[in-house]
């Protein structure tokens, strides 16, 4: 079983991202589970969402304390919340940022593999959100697919079109672009 934890801010769509990733894995025949941290949500406040992917039935019903993968939609959360809490050794951290992986340091994590891609710019290129608030939740899933190899980009794109009500094509292509752009 692989456990993925999403970190974003209220309004950025971290919960939707966790849901779409689960759908993509389900479409490939996996057992899945997706849910947000069940607290009071405010615009701008930190939001955590979870996805579990497994070949076997998923029986656990508790939050993810030892994730294999972290997805960070908003890099301002780094340092503000304990993002790497419990991250497994050699865990993967995928960050929406213009910066390069080497510029990040996560002292509490053991040998993390860091992936960066500028999802905000790519999202804006396809008209997703505004300059002040680009919508990166679908875009970043392309990077997640490439970095983790958990699902194919085709499954991600199909799940995006299933779960996103508007601008389906744009959201899917944005994810494809991050998939192609990410060095893994």
């Amino acid at each position: 079983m692989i456990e993925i934890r999403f970190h974003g801010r209220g309004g950025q769509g971290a919960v939707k991202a966790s849901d779409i990733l689960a759908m993509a894995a389900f479409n490939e025949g996996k057992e899945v589970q997706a849910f947000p941290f069940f607290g009071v949500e405010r615009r701008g406040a930190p939001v955590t969402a979870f996805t579990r992917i497994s070949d076997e039935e998923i029986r656990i019903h508790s939050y993810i304390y030892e994730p294999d993968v972290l997805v960070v939609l908003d890099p301002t959360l780094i340092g503000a919340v304990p993002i790497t809490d419990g991250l497994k050794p050699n865990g993967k951290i995928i960050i929406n940022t213009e910066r390069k992986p080497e510029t990040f340091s996560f002292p509490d994590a053991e040998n993390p593999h860091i992936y960066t891609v500028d999802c905000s710019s790519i999202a804006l290129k396809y008209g997703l959100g505004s300059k002040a608030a680009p919508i990166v939740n679908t875009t970043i899933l392309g990077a997640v697919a490439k970095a983790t190899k958990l699902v194919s980009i085709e499954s991600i794109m199909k799940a995006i079109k299933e779960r996103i009500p508007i601008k389906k094509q744009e959201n899917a292509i944005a994810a494809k672009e991050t998939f192609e752009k990410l060095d893994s």
Partner: protein
Amino acid sequence: MSDKKENETVDIKSANDMPPMPVSLGSMRTNKTASWRSIRPIIIEEKCKLCMICWKYCPEPAIFPTAPPTIDYDYCKGCGICIEECPFDAIISEKEGK
């Protein structure tokens, strides 16, 4: 009850530190619900006819019956009811900044 200062927080570590029932440490004076807002209502004075329907409908209340009405942005939660109810479209909504 004690005079709680604005934005003061208390670190509760144990059941013994807690009062018998959930009770707020201060009043709404220190709980400014402005942070709940995603949209901000703005009154356009030229269109306002002083009917005061916005004041009557505001659930907070965060609108006061001055001429023209004033919105208390410390407490307005951005529910949008005033915008909806104004018969003269004299209240518009703006996206709240980050």
